[in-house]
Each structure stands twice: as structure tokens, then as C-alpha cells.
């Protein structure tokens, strides 16, 4: 309307859900704002002081009224809470079959790595209608990955992975912003998410992956860094068998256990002594300073690609 | 020796109101101190859980003997402080002044031993950010531990210095015959502060020195 946008495009499966919640809150807010404003105007006019000697009469203050206007807002608030929490659960739980894209943020650009090796800077191409899961980290300070059209935002932290996901529902080009102040060019750390029809996306994929897929790059790095000398996969190897590790439960020294995910793999490479697998010695050297975040992503992709051991 | 009732400040109606206000004020101030140390202890505790091994190793770099001696020194100083308060309450000026001087002496002893500990850290190259030569796989977490050790005990030591100053002032006024059964509020309140600083140390000792395995 006259080039004045008032509402962002709805371009993801999450967007309509967030917008429905938004409109509910807008409705409640408009109702109460008009109610209070209306009452104030009405009372101010109706009870305008008519003479200096006017005296008011004390009113009865029913506790029932106080309780009503405590309980009713509380009830509305609980509706907002539960509804908001359910949308939140959707927003933070990527579907299992999501396409993986790895994101490294740094002052002041976004670097993307697709699993088949495509690398992009600031502009991210994704297919329409498929869930895309972003695994993200920062090389320096805290950033935040924000695509208003998808209603998606997640802080990107140095030293760990954070994840978010979306399923784009409308082809087009959408704003990508950094949403956590990160220094001088914070407002220049922007780009686009370009949503393509599936066939277009396929042909785009074919155009530029130099150096093979992420997993194959990771496999090469695995050899080059000497990981395979200890992680041989044999029974008495110095390091645990990594075949099929990803997604498996791992028992640690001390009895606790966890499910191996991207963060576990990253931490094990950079801080191997943080979590020792039960039955193994703490002898793995650290690769801190020897691998970049982008190289770590290739290792993660490689390990993810290792099938479960046949037994 | 007669003690004079406190001069009642103009905003108060009587001495009792003045005393009650001062006491409440001191308790609230101590509550702020709980939050102050609590904030730092929260950060310490979070990292203690995250980096248990490194923190245990860092704890082993501290001198448990000196820490224990200091604990005895500080607890004894609380005893002498309490005796001093009692002396003020019953009007025994010599007991009051002697006890407070002993408290000061013990406080200075505590700080001296702390100074020795700090000096050792400098000699051993265990001062993060300034001179840290410790190596080993846990070194970064040891550095964090020792940094938090310096900050916790440093802020505590600063409170000790202020406390010694306050006790000195009260000791001087006590020597001048200011306190007795009718008026001894400053002695009580300084005593409260002193005991609080002691209690903080009781928390610091096990958290810093004793969790070394």
C-alpha cells in the first residue's frame, strides 16, 4: 500500500503459526487498550469536577471485582503462555529428515556450507518445501541469524553450535539480518535467503561445488590430521570407533552418558579431555588452533555420513 | 568511668530510634554484601561444575596449611571481637580496647598470611593475565580457577581492610571512654560486620581450598 510495508511476508511453515499467535495478542491488546482508554475518557468526562467544593462519596470496593480482574488476565496470560510454548516447541525441533546446512558467522559476514560442498557467502539458496536445519557457530563474537519472513531467529555463539530450522513455503528472496549487536558493521552483516523451486534448486546445486561434498572433504581432513591413526575402527584401537557414532548413545568415564551430536563431536576435537569415553585413556591431543570452524563442519559432516557398523 | 549516652542526631526522636535505625541499616548492608559475594560465588560454582577436573587441579595449587591457619586466625578474631562487644556492653573499657586491638592484630595477621600466599603465586608463575606459566592439559581451567581465587579472596581482603579500619576507629573511641552500657551501638555494628566477613571466609575456604580431588 503506497510502498509502505506493514507486515512481513509469510514464507515458512512456522510463519502462519507465529502470526496467528500475534493476531490473538493484538486482539487482546486492542481490546484492553480500548477498554481502559475508553473508561478513562468516559469517566474523565462524566465525572469532571463541576465545582471547587465538590466532594466525592466513598465507594464500595468489592473484593470479587479485584479477584475477577486478577483471575481473568491470569487466565488469558496462561492461554498465551501455553500457545506460545507450543509454537516454540515447533520452532526449536527440526524434523528428522531436514536438509543440513552449516553456518559460520563472523564479523561481518555469513558463511554457508551445503552438505554437497556448495559454499556461499551472505546469500543462502534453499529448496522450496523442504525442511532445512541450520547448525551454526561464530568465529568471534555473538551474532544472531534472523530471517523475518520465516519468523526464525537464533543467536550464533562462539565456542558452540546452536541450531534452528525452517521449511520455506514461498519462492522468493528474503532478508537475512544479523540480530545481535556485533560491532562496527553489525547492520551490514546482512544477506538473503533465496528460496527456489525444487528443479531450480537441483540445477543450482550442480553449478558450483568445488572440492566435492562436505563429507568427502571431512574424510580427507580426517586422514590429513592423523585422526585415523587412533580411530582405526579396530578392537584395540587407542581411540573409540567412530563408525555409526552420530546419534548413538555414548557412555563416558564416570558413568554418565549422552547422545553423540554435532556439539559433542566439535567439543571432542577441540577439548578432548572434557568428556572421556568409558574404557579409554585421556590421550587425545587437542586440535584447538589447528582447525577452523569451517573445517570442523566438514569433520562433523564426515562423521555423520559414517554408517552404523554391520554386526 | 562514665560513658555518655549517644548524642541523638536531629532526625531521630530518641536514642532508641537511632540505635534501631543503625542496626537495621547494618543488617540491610550485610544483605547487599551477601548478594555481592553471592554473585561471584555463582560464577565460581557454575565453572566448578563445568570444569571439575581443572578446578580440582587448581585447588591443589593453593597452600592448604596457610589457608587453615588463616581460618583459625579469623575465627579467633571473631571471638576477640565478640569479647570486645561484651566489654562495651558492660562498660569494661580495658577489656573492650584490648579485645579490639587483638582483633586488629589477628586481622592484620590474616592479611599478612594472605599476602604471603599471593607472593607465592607470583613466584610460582601462577598469576593469570599477568604471569602465568603453568602448563598441562588443564591449564586454561586452572587459570580460571586461580583468577576466581584471586578475585574472591581479593574482594574479601578488601572487606577485611575496611573492617580493620572500622575496628580501629571504634577501638580509639573506646579508649576515649565513649562506650558503655548506655551506648555501644557502633561496637555492636562493627562486630556484626566483622562476623559477616568471617562467615564469608568460612564459605571461601572449603570452596577454594578443600575441593581438591
Amino acid at each position: 500500500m503506497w510502498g509502505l510495508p506493514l507486515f512481513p511476508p509469510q514464507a515458512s511453515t512456522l510463519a502462519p503459526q507465529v502470526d496467528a499467535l500475534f493476531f490473538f495478542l493484538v486482539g487482546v491488546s486492542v481490546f484492553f487498550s480500548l477498554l481502559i482508554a475508553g473508561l478513562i475518557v468516559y469517566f474523565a468526562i462524566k465525572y469532571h469536577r463541576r465545582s471547587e467544593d465538590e466532594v466525592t462519596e466513598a465507594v464500595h470496593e468489592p473484593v470479587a471485582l479485584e479477584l475477577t480482574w486478577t483471575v481473568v488476565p491470569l487466565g488469558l496470560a496462561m492461554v498465551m503462555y501455553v500457545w506460545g510454548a507450543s509454537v516454540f516447541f515447533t520452532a526449536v525441533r527440526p524434523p528428522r529428515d531436514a536438509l543440513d546446512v552449516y553456518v559460520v558467522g563472523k564479523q561481518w559476514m555469513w558463511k554457508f556450507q551445503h552438505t554437497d560442498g556448495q559454499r556461499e557467502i551472505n546469500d543462502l539458496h534453499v529448496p522450496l518445501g523442504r525442511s532445512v536445519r541450520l547448525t551454526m557457530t561464530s568465529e568471534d563474537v555473538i551474532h544472531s541469524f534472523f530471517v523475518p519472513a520465516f519468523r526464525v531467529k537464533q543467536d550464533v555463539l562462539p565456542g558452540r553450535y546452536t541450531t534452528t530450522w525452517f521449511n520455506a513455503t514461498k519462492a522468493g528472496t528474503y532478508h537475512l539480518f544479523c540480530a545481535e549487536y556485533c560491532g562496527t558493521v553489525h547492520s551490514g552483516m546482512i544477506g538473503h535467503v533465496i528460496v527456489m523451486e525444487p528443479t531450480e534448486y537441483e540445477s543450482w546445486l550442480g553449478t558450483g561445488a568445488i572440492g566435492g561434498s562436505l563429507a568427502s572433504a571431512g574424510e580427507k581432513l580426517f586422514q590429513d590430521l592423523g585422526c585415523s591413526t587412533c580411530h582405526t575402527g579396530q578392537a584395540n584401537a587407542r581411540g573409540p570407533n567412530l563408525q555409526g557414532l552420530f546419534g548413538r548413545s555414548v557412555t563416558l568415564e564416570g558413568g554418565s552418558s549422552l547422545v553423540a551430536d554435532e556439539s559433542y563431536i566439535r567439543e571432542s576435537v577441540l577439548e578432548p579431555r572434557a568428556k572421556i569415553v568409558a574404557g579409554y585413556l585421556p590421550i587425545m591431543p587437542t586440535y584447538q588452533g589447528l582447525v577452523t570452524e569451517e573445517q570442523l563442519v566438514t569433520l562433523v559432516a564426515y562423521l555423520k555420513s559414517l554408517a552404523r557398523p554391520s554386526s | 568511668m562514665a560513658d555518655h549516652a549517644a548524642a541523638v542526631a536531629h532526625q531521630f526522636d530518641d536514642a532508641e530510634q537511632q540505635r534501631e535505625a543503625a542496626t537495621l541499616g547494618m543488617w540491610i548492608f550485610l544483605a547487599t554484601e551477601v548478594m555481592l559475594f553471592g554473585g561471584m560465588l555463582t560464577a565460581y560454582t557454575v565453572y566448578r561444575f563445568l570444569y571439575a577436573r581443572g578446578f580440582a587441579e587448581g585447588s591443589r595449587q593453593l597452600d592448604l596449611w596457610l589457608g587453615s591457619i588463616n581460618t583459625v586466625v579469623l575465627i579467633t578474631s571473631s571471638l576477640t571481637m565478640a569479647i570486645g562487644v561484651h566489654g562495651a556492653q558492660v562498660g569494661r573499657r580495658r577489656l573492650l580496647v584490648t579485645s579490639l586491638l587483638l582483633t586488629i592484630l589477628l586481622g592484620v595477621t590474616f592479611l599478612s598470611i594472605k599476602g604471603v600466599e599471593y607472593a607465592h603465586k607470583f613466584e610460582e608463575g601462577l598469576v593469570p593475565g599477568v604471569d602465568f606459566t603453568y602448563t598441562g592439559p588443564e591449564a586454561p581451567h586452572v587459570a580460571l580457577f586461580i583468577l576466581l581465587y584471586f578475585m574472591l579472596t581479593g574482594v574479601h581482603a578488601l572487606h577485611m581492610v575496611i573492617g580493620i579500619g572500622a575496628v580501629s576507629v571504634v577501638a580509639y573511641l573506646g579508649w576515649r571512654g565513649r562506650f558503655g552500657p548506655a551506648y555501644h551501638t557502633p561496637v555492636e555494628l562493627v562486630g556484626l560486620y566483622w562476623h559477616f566477613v568471617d562467615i564469608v571466609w568460612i564459605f571461601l575456604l572449603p570452596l577454594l581450598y578443600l575441593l581438591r580431588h
Partner: protein
Amino acid sequence: MTSPAVTLAPVPQEHYLNVDYGVRSWLLTTDHKRVGLLYLIGITGAFFLGGFFAVLIRLELLTPQGDLVQAETYNKLFTMHGVIMVFFFLIPSIPAVLGNFMLPLMIGARDVAFPRLNLLSWYLYMAGAIFVSTVVVTGGVDTGWTFYTPYSTMSSTSHVIPTALGIFIVGFSSILTGLNFIVTIHRMRAPGLTWFRLPLFVWSLYATSLIQVLGTPVLSIVILLLGVERLLHVGIFDPALGGDPVLFQHLFWFYSHPAVYIMILPGMGVISELVTCFARKNIFGYRFVAFSSLGIAVLGFLVWGHHMFVAGQSVYAAMVFSLLSYLVAIPSAIKVFNWTATLHRGSISYQTPMLYVFGFIGLFTIGGLTGLFLACIGLDIHVTDTYFVVAHFHYIMVGGMVMAYLGGIHYWWPKITGRLYPEGISKLAALTIFLGFNLTFFPQFILGYLGMPRRYHVYPDEFQVLNVMSTAGASILGIGYLLPMIYLVWSLWYGEVAGPNPWRATGLEWQTPSPPPRDNFTTTPIVTTGPYEYSRPRGEHG
């Protein structure tokens, strides 16, 4: 207590302003009223300095490009705007100016419990202000008022440590004022002044003081840790050195969320005073309003994680903080309903303080309701770190607190100065402020939902129209704020002489001359009734 008729009594012979002359009598004063005025000077200076930075920000945002100032300068502008407005204007404002002046008067005391500590609080405020002012003139700081690590400790090349030091020092000013007020309220009430006869402004100052006293020390520690990390390059919060940047956020917001309640509770207290006086009616639901202040103070300590829903904390933490954030909204809603109900069957005057009441209730309602959007985790993902948040907190802090502050200044101006402000132009100023405010900040809700992030120096072209509207509003708002500066100063010489009780208000502060004598009351008042006995009891006539 009966309300005396308005008299044009001459200004009393001797009062707190003329009992003593000379710079020393001010800089060494232990009179809470003079301390309040000393703060007024500092607060006003801070407001206009912070406001100047806001003007520059809004001018830059007239165009999508960064054509007024460089990016680094812009980052310093919004940082210093935030630091100055939060720590040197809003947090002290009502407590240190109106609270200091009115609290002892309202409880029938001669002064606060610790007058010299009160003066020390002011010196600490000024010391902190000097540090920050020095930073302003020597190159500024660009971390955002939130100082997130590792940017603030490892990346920023601006004057972080002097700023941190200034905030550290002013924090102690806040703690000591809170301590002073708590002891004063507990121990120095006049005979017969029980807790439930206290004016609601006193209840709000009490709740605010609790937060100041318990929350600020945590800020002190986190600033200390920040400074140590930056100075010594050690890894407390920097992950490259083994630290956790999210831990910084937890520690920072543990104070800074309760701090926002420091920045609204006193305003709510003022509104309770104004609405009763200018509707000439007892407050509806006194106990509910009183306890809601305490409820906000307590619950306010439990919700800090709602600033961190997308920061990387666990889903379960987010759930808990969202629930608690909804709970903390309820006491504020209760207050709004009770204020509105107070108007029912009132005798409502349209004098300027009442205009500020109307503005406050409307704007605070909108601001508070938009807080519900932010507490809603599914929705917050989209709007956090956008202009939606900026609009929300400005509705509360400017539409709410600043309007309450101005309302209080106008209401108590006759008591403080012995003069009345000019009613005509003050109404115009109030209206200008209301209209300018809405034009400035309402478009920002839309900008936020559209996706314009905070702290952006340049922005996509399609956001320009809304930004231009916002800047236009800011110009009007600026004029609105300048007017009181001018006419309030004018009134010191040419304003009508006020007399002890120009508003025919209840309240002990109106039972003494305007301006009050040095020790407030010639004899200590004895209280036998509640604070707002305006109305004729039900059933009585004539």
C-alpha cells in the same frame, strides 16, 4: 485531617532554601530536600545529554543509508544513550529527586535515617557521571548498554573500562539510597502512621529500594568480572579462553531485569498520589495496589531469562521464564484496573498532573500489553532484538516513567519551590509530549514485526517511511520536553505563590508550608486516618 481552602499566604519567612546560603551549604548539606535538588540538577543534565544522543540517532535513521555519522559513531551513540538514560536518568530519577524530597515529609519525619549517607549517595552519583562524561568526550563506548561478551571484553576498541567503572560507582549510589529509604520507612514514621496508612508512593519506594539493595550488588560483580577479563585477557566469559558468554548474560540480566522495575515502580507510586488527589477520591483497592508493588519486586527477580530466549539457554529454562514473566504482568494489570476504578465517581480535574496520569495509564497499558508479546516464547523468537522491543520498553520507560516523573514534578513543584507552574502552557506541553511520543514509538512496533533489527545504522529502503514518522515524532517530543524546562524555570521568579496546599490534597507533605522549613514540621504530626481521606463516607450527606 481536613483540607484547608486554597490560600494565597505569602512565602514563609524562613524555609530550607534560604536558611543557609553559599556553595558550601549546598555541597555539604544533609537536608534531604537539598539533596533531592542536587540530584534534580544531575538528572536533568543526564536527560538532556541522553536525549541529545537520541536526537542524533533519529536524525541518522531518517535515511536508509549511513550518511550522518559513521557506523562506529552510531554504535557509540546508541550505547551512550542507553547507559546515560538507564543508569544516570531513569534509575535515580523519581527515587533520588521526588523520593528524597518527599519521603520524610510524607511520613512526618524530619529527614531520612542517614542524611550524611544520602549526601554520599549524591557524590557517588556525580563521580559515576564524571567517569561517563569523560568517556563521552574522549571517544565514547560502543558495546551497547548491555555489554555482551565477548564483544565487550575482546573485540571492542572503545572506552569500556572507564564506562564500566562509572556504572560500578553509580551502582553504590543506588544501593545506599535504597538502604536509606528502607530504614527510613521502617523506623521513622510519625506516631499513628501504620503501614496501611502509608501513601502508596511510599510503598512503591519501599519495593523499589528492596530491588536496588538486593539486585545492584550483582551488577557490581558482573562489571568487576567484565573489567578483569578485558584488562587481563583471561577467559571468564570468552569461549576462546574457556569462558561462557551466556553466563555473562545470566549475571547481567539477573540485575538488569529487576532494574527495569526500579524504572517503573516509583512512577506507579506517583500515579497513585496524583490520581487520588485530582479525582479527589480514595484509591480503589489500596491493599491490592500496595501488595502489587511488593509482588512485582519479588517476581521481578525470577524472570531474567526472558531476555535470553534465543540466546542458547535450554528449552526448559525458557518455559519456566516465560511462565514467570506472565505472572509478573498480573500485578501491573491490577494496578491499572484500580487506578481506572478510582476515577469512577470521582471529581476529576484536568490540571496538568492529571493529564500526565491519563497519559501514563494509556501508554503504560500499551507498553505492558506488548510485554506479553515478548513473554510469549513462540512469538519472541521473531520480535526479540528488533524494534518491537525498543518500542515496548520506551512505552514503559518514557510513556510511563518519564510521564509519571513529569507529573510528579508538576504536582510537587509548589511544595518544592513555593510557586505554581503556569497551567496553560503546561497543558500544552503535556499534550505535545503525548502526541510526539506516540508518533515516535508506535511505528517502531510495526518496524519490529517487519523485522528491522535493533542497533542498525543502515536499513533496507522499505523501512524508511516508518522511520521518518518516528523521527518526526521525536522532534515533537523534544519540543514537548523543552517546554517544561523553560516554564518551570520561569515560574521560580514569576510563578504564582503557591501556599501550603494549592491542590487541597491530603498527605502530610501538604500540612507544612511551601517551601518547607529545614526540619519539615514545627511539631511532629500525629496520624489518625488513611492517606486518601478525600471522600465523604458512604451514607453521609452534607
